């Protein structure tokens, strides 16, 4: 359903236009004020901008759309398990989300082709931060897409599912950062509380990944919450079919 729907391709075009513009803006900024940070690292540090609109657009239809037009009923009469329904919805949206991010490799490639002088330093396509950032996107994407699928499973309105996904993503991404700021400002938090706050800081995870520090804790955070949310989604469609 995801790949035959025009909505998906509209979301893809919007995503690529926006990311293209951001990449151009970053390069332009670097021309005016030279920076220590690599353009790739700067580019991936604004990952949250497209996440806020692409993830709701890709996932809001998944279950809520099927429920509102009634095709969830016909799906439930086939001998496939409810977990398989949820996993396939999740896999479709997740793979498309990753495909969109993979397409953004085109931006440095195009820049290199058009401006060979700029590429001489090799800063545009440095492999390590690219791999680290993609690894971060792949693991954090698991959580973001599962939030979308879960939000879509609890309602029959696509609009409500979209709003719910957006709000939850906002809380998860920005809320974690704000908690980190509060912890820094307070200064009196015990060590375990600091550890807990750091555990939830998605921006910190991105920093680590893009510097090549692959920690198992973020992996555990993203995968365990993903399993939990997909499990809940299965229970919800089991009960609300």
């Amino acid at each position, binding site marked *: *359903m995801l790949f*035959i*729907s*025009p909505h998906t391709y509209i979301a893809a075009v919007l995503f690529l236009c926006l990311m293209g513009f951001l990449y151009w803006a970053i390069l332009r900024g670097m021309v005016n004020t030279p920076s220590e940070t690599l353009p790739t690292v700067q580019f991936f540090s604004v990952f949250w901008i497209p996440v806020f609109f692409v993830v709701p657009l890709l996932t809001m239809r998944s279950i809520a759309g099927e429920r509102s*037009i*009634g*095709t969830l*009923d*016909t*799906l*439930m*009469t*086939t*001998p*496939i*398990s409810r977990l398989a329904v949820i996993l396939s919805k999740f896999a479709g949206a997740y793979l498309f989300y990753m495909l969109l991010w993979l397409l953004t490799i085109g931006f440095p490639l195009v820049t290199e082709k058009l401006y060979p002088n700029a590429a001489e330093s090799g800063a545009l396509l440095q492999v390590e931060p690219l791999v680290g950032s993609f690894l971060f996107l792949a693991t954090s994407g698991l959580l973001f897409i599962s939030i979308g699928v879960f939000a879509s499973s609890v309602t029959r309105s696509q609009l409500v599912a979209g709003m719910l996904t957006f709000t939850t993503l906002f809380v998860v991404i920005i809320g974690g950062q704000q908690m980190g700021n509060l912890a820094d400002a307070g200064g009196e938090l015990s060590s375990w509380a600091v550890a807990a706050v750091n555990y939830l800081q998605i921006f910190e995870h991105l920093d680590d990944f893009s510097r090549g520090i692959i920690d198992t804790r973020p992996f555990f955070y993203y995968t365990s919450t993903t399993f939990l949310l997909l499990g809940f989604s299965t229970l919800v469609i089991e009960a609300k*079919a």
Partner: protein
Amino acid sequence: METIPSIRVKDLTRQYGALTAIHKVNFTVNPGEVVGFLGPNGAGKSTTMRILSGIMSATSGSAWVGGICVAQNPHEVKRKIGYMPENNPLPDDMRVVEYLRFRSRLKEVPGHKLRAAVKEAMEICDLARTARRKIIGTLSKGFRQRVGIADALLGDPEIIIMDEPTIGLDPHQIQGIRKLIDNLRGKHTVIISSHILPEIERSCDRVIIINRGRIVAAGTSNELREEFLPSNRYSLIVEGNDTAVAACLASRGIDADILECTPIAENRSELNLRVENEGNLGPQLIQILSSQREFILHSLASREPNLEEIFLAATKRSWEETIETKPKISA
């Protein structure tokens, strides 16, 4: 050897909070039968069908499909059932053939049989030449219904359940679907729910009437006729004083009631007569009525009560019974 019934339902009850959608429903459907499920809106038809197809669970009671208990093994039951839900939901963005192939894969049709299975279902529903590559969203209502029925037929299920398959169709399309159901007779067990009563009467071997969550009648049209409207009915056209007809028959020992009197022309009316006496009274009635001076008999025809009248009588009886069984509130 005793044959296993296609569907057996025992004391099936489903409650939505305080509301009881169906209450202790019992029925059996034998292999190869075409059974009509009748009932007013909110009677519990769709709930029963949803429980049978494994989408919803029952609050209490049991249902067996092809000898398998729905609650214990819903997966196996789904392999035996082709279900077309109410309003026939379809994805508007897909092409007919794509959708049917997708559904075949979901219904575990083996890869090498997939094309043949889709082709056969489309041939049966007359979609192969006309609508094969069309996008579902652009199809007319009749074609959409056919796509829904083709989907229910995929995977050659033992039992086909269709919730209101003829709703919103024109008479030509209804005739097409009736032929289709006739083709399925004997090969599949078919359960249809419908509001269009003549449709059920023509297509179904047996009828189950459900009202307010309870089965109020079950049997062939003839059996129901004898149970609910046992008296003879006649339709006659008289010219003159139509009120004298009942009195004239009573004077000859025939207990008759005029159910309906419709004036059709000046001084001429059509009467709908119910006669309590048994046996064929046609010749006797003609003899009595044609010799009267107060009116002239133009025509007399025996009238079989149709399913609509049986349905009304059965649901009315169930309403009366429920009112009688309700505890009276003392003042």
